[in-house]
């Protein structure tokens, strides 16, 4: 082997041209605190105890200077060289080695992206090994245990200078015209994909962005892995919903799913419907919904556009998980409902209008004006308005009492005037029904009060009865206790442990409902 100097590294090395996904691209704003985060010691701890196996790197000849016969051998050596990991928490450690690896990675990326005929079969295991060694790691514990993706700056991956190039290489590898899925599938297997999916929990948005594109390519090219990938994403979501409530990459995974759903064949398989009902809809319960709501709503609407018969599941699901205390989420739900109504088929609308408009009426009477306002905006939507008009007979009675009451009571003037507009619209739609409802409003109110009184009456009766019953039971248990005191063995469940807790709580509960 010939001895060479360090490969030249000009500031305009080819990688700078490649680095498409970056944090800046995510939201278009420069991240002010990136610098701060880096200074503050961003974790990497990518690899456990890698320090022990440190080898000194020696620079290899440049790929572009290599004779064709030696190209593959050299490529392979560079891949092996890139399997050495460096400590990036110590930013001055082994600078020479880091630079050699960086240059080698750059060359590999460029070579895979631009020259043809490089990717031959023996290189696949080496390439996948290099990728695995570098990217697969147990993600470090979050520096901030109460990390709030909306408020806090993420901890950035310290080894990014190398990691980014490895991801870039992987992406170019998958996108290369020479890439052969039949060869790759031996190395990019289920275990590999599972580890890849776990990395979506990375706090670093740049890493998740790469992962998203890569997983998308893998899903597109390796058909045998598709079902497995979907199943594992399901598992990640279910763990997120029901166990940990924490996973950083939900939005990215949903984005991929959005395009996967788009490609589903019709009629929908039951597996896919199950995914909608048991995974996507429950995802709405997450505390951190706002971070991935746009992607989630997109997936939901995709499903509807595929197959209108899922509409009822979706609407009833959303109504089941309707936020009770978080008004911010309520506004998001209303937004999603509007997106759904925008594309709903009139026949499906009729199936859900009743429960749906009960909820909308409840939102209109929300004391939080943004919730009420968001619900009232539905009447500005041409298509929704036409649906309401067609079903005025059903909908108006559902919402009338609320509109009438809130128009007199709401503290916020904007809401009051919006309600007047809605009432006016209804009056124009069906003045006869409107007048009837106005006339019967008071009577209905009276009936409601009467029902309320009857309920109270019923419960009072029930509780008196329980009192009496408990007294008899109390006597019985006293007798039993007397028996026990005479030396009979105790029973595991005596009535006095099962019952007497009830009456106090019941009575107080009853008075609060009246």
């Amino acid at each position, binding site marked *: 082997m010939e001895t060479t100097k360090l490969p030249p590294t000009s500031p305009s090395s080819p990688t700078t041209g490649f680095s498409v996904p970056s944090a800046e691209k995510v939201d278009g704003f420069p991240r002010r605190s990136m610098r701060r985060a880096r200074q503050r010691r961003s974790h990497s701890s990518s690899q456990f105890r890698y320090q022990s196996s440190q080898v000194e790197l020696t620079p290899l000849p440049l790929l572009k200077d290599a004779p064709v016969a030696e190209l593959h051998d050299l490529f392979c050596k560079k891949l092996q060289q890139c399997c050495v990991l460096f400590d990036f928490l110590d930013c001055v450690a082994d600078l020479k080695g880091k630079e050699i690896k960086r240059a080698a990675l750059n060359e590999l990326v460029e070579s895979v992206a631009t020259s043809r005929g490089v990717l031959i079969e023996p290189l696949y295991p080496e390439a996948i090994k290099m990728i695995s060694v570098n990217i697969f790691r147990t993600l470090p514990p979050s520096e901030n245990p109460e990390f709030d993706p909306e408020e806090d700056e993420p901890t950035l991956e310290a080894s990014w200078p190398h990691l980014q190039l490895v991801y870039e290489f992987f992406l170019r590898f998958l996108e290369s015209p020479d890439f052969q899925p039949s060869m790759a599938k031996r190395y990019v297997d289920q275990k590999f994909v599972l580890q890849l999916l776990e990395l979506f929990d990375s706090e670093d948005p740049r890493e998740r962005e790469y992962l998203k594109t890569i997983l998308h390519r893998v899903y597109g090219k390796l058909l045998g892995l598709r079902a497995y990938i979907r199943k594992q994403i399901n598992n990640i979501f279910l763990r997120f919903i029901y166990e940990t409530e924490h996973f950083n990459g939900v939005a990215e995974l949903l984005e991929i799913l959005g395009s996967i759903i788009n490609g589903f064949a019709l009629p929908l398989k039951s597996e896919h419907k199950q995914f909608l009902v048991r995974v996507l809809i429950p995802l709405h319960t997450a505390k951190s919904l706002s971070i991935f709501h746009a992607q989630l709503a997109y997936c939901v609407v995709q499903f509807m556009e595929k197959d209108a018969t899922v509409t009822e599941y979706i609407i009833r699901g959303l109504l089941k998980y309707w936020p009770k205390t978080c008004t911010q989420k309520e506004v998001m739900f209303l937004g999603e409902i509007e997106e759904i109504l925008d594309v709903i088929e009139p026949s499906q609308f009729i199936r859900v209008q009743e429960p749906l408009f009960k909820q909308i009426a409840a939102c209109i009477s929300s004391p939080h004006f943004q919730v009420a306002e968001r619900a009232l905006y539905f009447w500005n939507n041409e298509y929704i308005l036409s649906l309401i008009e067609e079903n005025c007979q059903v909908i108006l009675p559902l919402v009338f009492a609320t509109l009438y009451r809130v128009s007199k009571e709401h503290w916020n003037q904007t809401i009051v005037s919006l309600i007047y507009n809605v009432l006016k619209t209804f009056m124009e739609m069906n003045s006869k029904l409107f007048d009837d409802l106005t006339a019967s409003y008071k009577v209905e109110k009276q009936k409601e009060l009467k029902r309320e009184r009857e*309920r109270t009456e019923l419960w009072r009766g029930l509780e008196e*009865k329980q009192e*009496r019953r408990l007294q008899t039971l109390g006597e019985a248990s006293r007798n039993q206790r007397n028996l026990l005191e005479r030396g009979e063995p105790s029973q595991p469940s005596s009535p006095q442990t099962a019952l007497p807790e009830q009456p106090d709580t019941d009575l107080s509960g009853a008075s609060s409902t009246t």
Partner: protein
Amino acid sequence: MAGADGDDSLYPIAVLIDELRNEDVQLRLNSIKKLSTIALALGVERTRTELLPFLTDTIYDEDEVLLALAEQLGNFTMLVGGPEYVHCLLPPLESLATVEETVVRDKAVESLRKISQEHSPVDLEVHFEPLVKRLASGDWFTSRTSACGLFSVCYPRVSSTVKAEIRQHFRTLCSDDTPMVRRAAASKLGEFAKVLELDYVKSDIISLFTALASDEQDSVRLLAVEACVSIATLLPQEDLETLVMPTLRQAAEDKSWRVRYMVADKFSELQKAVGPEITKNDLVPAFQNLLKDCEAEVRAAAANKVKEFCENLPEDSRETIIMTHILPCVKELVSDTNQHVKSALASVIMGLSTILGKDNTVEHLLPLFLAQLKDECPEVRLNIISNLDCVNEVIGIRQLSQSLLPAIVELAEDAKWRVRLAIIEYMPLLAGQLGVEFFDEKLNTLCMAWLIDHVYAIREAATCNLMKLVEKFGAEWAQNTIVPKVLGMANDPNYLHRMTTLFCINSLSEACGQEITTKQMLPVVLKMSNDQVANVRFNVAKSLQKIGPVLDSNALQSEVKPVLEKLSTDTDMDVKYFAQEALSVLALA
């Protein structure tokens, strides 16, 4: 009983069921929470034949309602007619054990576990065990997860054929396709092992344990660590090396920090379970590694266990092991880069002095204590100070007092009020350890300075602190050192400081006794009734009410009563209110 059943007709089931179906979730929830009332009204038979089928059929509801239902049904045995009918409760609970929401499912499993005890052995085999089997082979992961928690409650009371089936089902779930189920199985592995015969523990449980401990998901592997404790406790010592230790060693060096964290967190339990010999040979090096782990979380968890680990070392070699293996690691942790690690260590390190004795403490530990007392992180310093009593017993506090004082002063003046609050809370303890002389000389000024802190919480804590000090040092000390200063503040131009005088009197009067209260405090309080700030005046009324019981009736009648009467005609309505309240509480009205 018969008489009470007579008027059932008053409450047709339909009316009651309407209540359970009310459109308003809140009302529905209220009704479900009073399900026992409804059941009682219906009587046991109709509860069994009408109410329970209804509940089983209408299981689709809000999770909150389902949660209440799951809880209620666990206490329903008597309402369906006692243990002989308890199996009627299984169908609704079975459906509840399959719902998606974890909280509901867990509650349903809890109720099922509870009522399983009320089944006769026959019913257990006829009704309960088939339910467990159905859940264990359910389609969706939720029912299989729920099944995991039910094996251990029925296993001990069924025949050996059924036992074999149960073991088989558990085995299947341990290698389930979905990680959620494997996690549930792994978390119940220890519990299940406890009810199994020893032979089956060796033949079945160990292989499951080994498999779960090398699962592809770290969230499963870490649960196996917990099971390790129970399993190791069950096995005879001679089997541990071959059956458990390979897995435990592997867990301690797992590539995922979460698993290593779990090992560190359970270290004391593991240590007890494997016994002294294995501890010496295996756990000591493992513990050293955890203390040096590259992940701060792991180091902090291990640091928390330092004292317990050392305490439980076999006595014959304890000191050698600590001095040669543990202490060097501990020394490094004192200057760790992560404050959580240092503060975890600081909360236990003082405990080592009792184990190592006086000479070693002075020579090896004292420098570490002193270093931590100077740590940049207040929490570390606080943790050291809060554990001073351990050291005091061994070497006396004098050795430390020179360094202690600057540390205390610095904490006392920390910019964060929570830090100041924490150190105030340790003052009584410190005063007890350091003695009255040292206290008067060095700390008294600090305690008085807190009384005029600009944060109310600190002033409040400071008054409480004074009371505890008086309890410790006695009334005479109070009279000489603090009472004059407190009373002096009554003339302060700042009304908040004047009120502090009143708050101090409130808490000190009882500890100081009648004499000091009547002669020194009362005149000051009475004089303050003319204060121009209403807040001070109504606090005078409150103070008088508070110290009234300490005074004699003469003082009450001749001095307190006229002042309160005057205040009860005050122009400010709050002053009036509290003066009148004081008059009536002290029975002077």
